[in-house]
């Protein structure tokens, strides 16, 4: 059964919030508020998440793994190479001196952390992404966009809801 995409633009978050809550409460066949509802905003806005219901963020795990890996890699790379065939005394210090190696381990710990976190960000935020079916430059300016994906059948009802809250503009497009 073919799907339709609807994008409604609103002036401010309060209106958007009303719309979203209505959409989530109203039980419309062929439209799942948790999956098919996306809010696009020009600024980062915590409330959006509240009224969308909480969605888990996994990035911390990337960070953890990355940092740990970086640290381990550093320590073993360094100590390993120090203990190589050419291992020679330097300044009476042990051939594998812990404090200096710790410094570098620390740096690599951070390096790994940062890199992998960003990697995680790209993966989790699904970037780089292809342009989604409906987008309005207004969103990056000052308006809030609400993008929904629903069955043909539900489209009308949804439009109704948008209109009710006097959407500035409603775009719609067919999709799979």
């Amino acid at each position, binding site marked *: 059964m073919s799907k339709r995409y609807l994008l409604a633009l609103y002036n401010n978050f309060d209106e958007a919030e009303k719309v979203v809550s209505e959409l989530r409460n109203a039980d419309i066949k062929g439209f799942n508020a948790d999956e098919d509802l996306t809010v696009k905003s020009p600024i980062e806005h915590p409330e959006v998440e509240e009224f969308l219901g909480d969605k888990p963020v*996994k990035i911390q*795990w*990337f960070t953890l*793994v*990355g940092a740990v*890996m970086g640290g*381990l*890699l550093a320590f*073993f*790379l360094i100590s*390993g*190479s120090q203990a190589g*065939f*050419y*291992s*020679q005394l330097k300044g009476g210090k042990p051939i594998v001196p812990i404090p200096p190696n710790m410094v570098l381990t620390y740096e690599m710990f951070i390096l790994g952390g940062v890199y*992998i976190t960003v*990697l*995680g960000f790209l*993966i*989790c935020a699904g970037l780089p992404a292809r342009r989604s079916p409906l987008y309005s430059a207004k969103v990056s300016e000052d308006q809030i966009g609400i993008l929904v994906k629903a069955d043909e059948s539900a489209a009308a009802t949804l439009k109704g809801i948008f209109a009710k809250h006097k959407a500035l503009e409603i775009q719609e497009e067919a999709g799979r």
Partner: protein
Amino acid sequence: MHFSLRLFTLVAGLLLAAASHAADSAPKLTTPDDLGPEVTQPIEFPHFRHAGDEKDGGMQINCMYCHTYARRSMVAGIPPVQKCVGCHQNIPSVRETPRIKQLFDYYDNNKAIPWKKVHDIPDFVRFNHERHIKRFYFQQDRPYQEVCGYCHGDVKTMVVARRQKPLTMGWCANCHQKDHPVNATSTETGHGPNDCFTCHK
């Protein structure tokens, strides 16, 4: 999302494994052959004929019969013309061949032969022939052709000598970190010096 997390952990794991392997694995113990360029010498000296095996028409002369300084000094040196002449005076059969004629020209005009260096290492490196020969030829009594061959390759098959080994630092180190028996009989082993100052001057 969970999939990508797993995937990522896998990738990272592989990365780490690879990296640690890099730090971990010893240099390869094989000594690769990489053939140096052809060198044209004032006289095309046929090594195979002097040092080669009987079946190839060689005379199996010990390398150190001519390169006699190798076991006495850091540098192998080049035998003085005198040495070649010493034998060839008494070999009338080849006396008239072009190379030998050349040889005698040099000798009669008391001119040194401008041999070209084939196995040339940088000036900041100290390679001691004497030590290596003492260690492997005299102490471990391995066959001389093998011992010289470690660095000079299979000269006995060549006409004009040509570099066969890379003679790079890593290549030297490959051998230095191997444990060699200290002499033919004993089971005691030791590796070459790992002290920079021994080979760098």
